[in-house]
């Protein structure tokens, strides 16, 4: 102890013993500490990485080229227009070197091919992080002085969505997320303003509850409110986790509040029983109800389309007289419905509804025992309906659609982390927060109103991607950089044909002039494409064109007069301006040309790999069957189609074979000669 103290005091004497010596020592210390700053500068991270890179490329065959491309010192991409100062390329030196394909260590990996160059938009616009930084920690992570960390790779498509409003081929996750946002009812409660000033619209169609008492019972409403997915696994309505008493009061209010449908509400088709128990199933099949409606089979798989509601337990839900009225004419109950107005006979209605009403599930309502509603319960139900924002989605008598019911999500992708309340143990970043919030909203507080959805992990990632694309930049982007979406068309055909198109809900499946669904072919140029006689026949009795397709055109039981109106309209109005339908004859080609076309069909172009002409020999199931294409399509359309299919139908999988005019003409001659089998001829 004593000796160490002595040593210390000796040291003190040596260093600071007399003033001059002390001055010298202190000056030396100051000099050393001042040297730290330039030393830190010299031994900086980015210099280290650049030296590593030079070592990496030294032994390579392409070292000379890489060395010539390499520029030392701090590099930056400066784009004043979008406010980018990105120095990422200081360390990520090999980004543009295509020959570094074998290098997988960061920061030297080359960038995967994308449609933009780094000089166009910099790095941060897509990857986030702090572009100005020159250290790994500062550039990639969230720090006190910079919130925005690097965006995890699985949400990277969200960045494309900042500029591109329309769906892109390379961004399936973003596209599906945006569709989910519109389909799942998110935008009914949460406002999402688009950069063009409009608000995002929902593409789902939550049913109106104006006349709910006509349609179903209070017991069913109660069971549905408690757990929508117990009634139908594909139910879009989320679970609000209501208490028993609350579900009881809401159901009481909805029934009491419902107004009876004006007009002849109960024209019950005579209660005839179906003559044949299988008749209902076959009518259901013939009418292609399954194109839109699904049913869960015994194995638990949901089979059918998702345009309309699932019908697995429909018999437990609807009242028979309502179902009959609905099948007779759905537009009477719900004018904008996507369901077509089939022209069923009374007999058919009885058969079909009998079949549907048999689809019951006794378990669903087994435990529902509701006493008659009291006025207090009804009043409380009304309060709850207002509180939970039911009117955001559903039309309810006497309750207005609330404005800004839930937080606006227009800039959710730029929300500062400091404004988020995380759960204990959660990673503190925005993507994880959004995903967790969608996965289990009520885990953030039992008083929250957001209901529980049944999204899969992939769907949650897609939704998070779509939400992350809604950033400040999305809103502030210079107009020159935005790629707007094709505005939703409100095309509405005029006249009698227009009424028919609405009544048959053609737009539910077909797209015409930019409006409508994508389940069935685009009909914008249908008049140039098909022959009138075929169209008439097809509408009278549709048959499938593609053997591999499950979804098919339903038979609407139209009258000949209606079909004529319809056909005339299509033939006159839906024509392409690119060519004249009648510019080529539909037959009478020289046999030699027909034969040449046949040779081309089977040898040079091998069309039979996808198409069937000879039903015995050909095995092509991908494209439409061509056995009677000569009586279906116009020759001009066939010719133009073979010249450039994508010009007539963008996105078709038919390849563009770059045919010569002669080849295309010969093939047209051959196809025009395929007038169909004798069976069909005989029927005409």
């Amino acid at each position, binding site marked *: 102890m004593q000796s160490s103290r002595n040593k210390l005091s000796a040291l003190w004497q040596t260093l600071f013993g007399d003033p001059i010596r002390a001055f010298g020592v202190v000056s030396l210390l100051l000099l050393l500490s001042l040297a730290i*700053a330039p030393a830190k500068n010299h031994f900086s991270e980015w210099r280290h990485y650049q030296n590593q890179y030079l070592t990496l490329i030294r032994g390579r065959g392409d070292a000379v080229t890489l060395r010539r491309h390499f520029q030392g010192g*701090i590099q930056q991409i400066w784009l004043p227009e979008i406010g980018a100062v990105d120095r990422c390329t200081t360390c990520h030196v090999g980004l543009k070197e295509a020959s570094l394909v074998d290098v997988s260590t960061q920061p030297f990996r080359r960038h995967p091919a994308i449609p933009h160059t780094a000089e166009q938009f910099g790095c941060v616009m897509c990857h986030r992080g702090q572009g100005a930084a020159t250290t790994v920690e500062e550039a990639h992570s969230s720090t006190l002085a910079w919130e925005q960390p690097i965006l995890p790779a699985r949400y990277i498509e969200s960045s494309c969505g900042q500029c591109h409003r329309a769906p892109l081929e390379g961004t399936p996750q973003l596209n599906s997320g945006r569709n989910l946002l519109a389909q799942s009812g998110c935008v009914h409660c949460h406002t999402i303003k688009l950069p063009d000033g409009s608000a995002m619209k929902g593409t789902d169609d939550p049913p109106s509850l104006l006349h709910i008492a006509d349609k179903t019972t209070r017991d069913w409403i109660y069971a549905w409110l408690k757990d929508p997915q117990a009634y139908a696994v594909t139910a879009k309505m989320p679970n609000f986790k209501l208490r028993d008493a609350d579900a009881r009061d809401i159901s009481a209010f909805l029934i009491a509040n419902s107004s009876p449908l004006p007009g002849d509400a109960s024209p019950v088709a005579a209660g005839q029983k179906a003559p044949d128990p299988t008749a209902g199933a076959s009518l259901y099949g013939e009418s292609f109800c399954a194109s839109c409606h699904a049913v869960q089979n015994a194995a638990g798989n949901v089979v059918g389309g998702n345009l309309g509601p699932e019908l697995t337990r429909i018999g437990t839900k609807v009242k028979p007289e309502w179902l009959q009225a609905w099948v007779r004419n759905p537009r009477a109950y719900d004018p904008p419905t996507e369901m077509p107005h089939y022209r069923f006979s009374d007999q058919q209605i009885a058969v079909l509804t009998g079949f549907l009403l048999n689809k019951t599930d006794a378990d669903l309502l087994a435990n529902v025992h509701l006493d008659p509603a009291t006025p207090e319960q009804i009043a409380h139900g009304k309060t709850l309906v207002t509180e939970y924002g039911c009117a955001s989605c559903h039309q309810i008598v006497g309750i207005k659609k609330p404005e800004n019911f839930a937080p606006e999500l227009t800039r959710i992708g730029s929300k500062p982390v400091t404004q988020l309340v995380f759960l204990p143990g959660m990673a503190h970043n925005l993507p994880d927060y959004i995903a967790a919030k969608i996965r289990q909203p009520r885990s953030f507080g039992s008083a929250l109103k957001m209901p529980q959805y049944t999204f899969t992990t992939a769907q949650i990632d897609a939704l998070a991607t779509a939400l992350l694309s809604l950033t400040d930049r999305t809103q502030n982007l210079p107009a020159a950089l935005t790629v707007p979406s094709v505005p939703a068309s409100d095309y509405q055909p005029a006249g009698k044909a227009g009424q028919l198109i609405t009544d048959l809900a053609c737009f539910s499946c077909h797209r015409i002039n930019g409006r409508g669904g994508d389940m069935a072919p685009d009909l914008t140029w249908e008049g140039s494409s098909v022959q009138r006689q075929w169209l008439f026949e097809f509408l009278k009795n549709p048959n499938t064109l593609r053997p591999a397709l499950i979804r098919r055109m339903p038979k609407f039981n139209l009258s000949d007069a209606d079909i004529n109106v319809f056909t005339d309209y299509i033939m006159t109005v839906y024509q392409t301006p690119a060519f004249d339908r009648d510019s080529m004859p539909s037959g009478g080609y020289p046999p030699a040309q027909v034969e040449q076309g046949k040779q081309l069909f089977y040898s040079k172009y091998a069309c039979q790999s996808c198409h069937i002409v000879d039903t015995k020999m050909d095995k092509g199931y991908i494209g439409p069957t061509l056995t009677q294409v000569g009586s279906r399509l116009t020759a001009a359309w066939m010719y133009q189609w073979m010249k450039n299919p994508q010009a007539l139908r963008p996105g078709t999988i038919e390849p563009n074979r770059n045919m010569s005019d002669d080849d295309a003409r010969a093939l047209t001659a051959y196809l025009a000669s395929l007038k169909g089998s004798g069976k069909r001829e005989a029927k005409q």
Partner: protein
Amino acid sequence: MAKTIENYFDQMRGTRVWRSVFRGGTGSSTLRRSLAIQQNVFLHLFSTKVRRRMLSFSATWYLGTLTLGTFLILVSTGIFLMLYYHPSVPQAYADTKDLQFVVSSGLFLRNLHRWSAHAMVFLVFAHMFKVFYRGAYRPPREFNWVIGVILLLITLLLSYTGYLLPWDQLAYWAITVGSNIAKAVPVLGNNVHFLMLGGNLVNANALLRFYVLHCMILPLTAIVFIAIHFWRIRKDGGLYSHQSEPKTLAAKAVPAPAGAVAKGAQ
């Protein structure tokens, strides 16, 4: 060796250029030495004579000198920082980021400025406490105490105006809160607030105003008051020393029981 250097200096002091600049002549007489002090614009701020006792660390803890030291560091680093900084809304924060990431030793420069600023505030307070507890504010030094208080206020204002310049969240809200405090002044509050910020909110005008205050008005005012402060130290009889005060001297002159006086004087 030492002799040669001394001769060389003497020779230099004798040249016409030297004498035209420093006026004083050569020689080491008491007169020459005091003239060398009195006739120099910087040195004449100091006393011509200082008691040896007052140069020891325990007498002042060098607090005033250290404060001056930090002030000089702040002025020099501040001038360098001004070379990299634009007092404009879109650039201010980016410029502080550039200082951190791309300016050679920029982070050192900024940190030195920042820590010296903190040190100066601390040292000014420490200096005042030392002066207060030693009783050095008493006549004839009461005016210099007032100058000291003014210098304290200027130091605090420099610190406050400098706080806004990085233009980050901390700065923005600190100035918002601070200016709202000024707003709470009765009657004039709103006008003071408007005058401070050049508007009703902390924005581009406030940034520019604070920049001008921080880099121009306040430092120049501080320099003027520092000069007065130093000059008054000399005029008020040099650094305060209890032993040389008239009262102490008078008390010493009176014969009294030795122990009591000695203890009282400590």
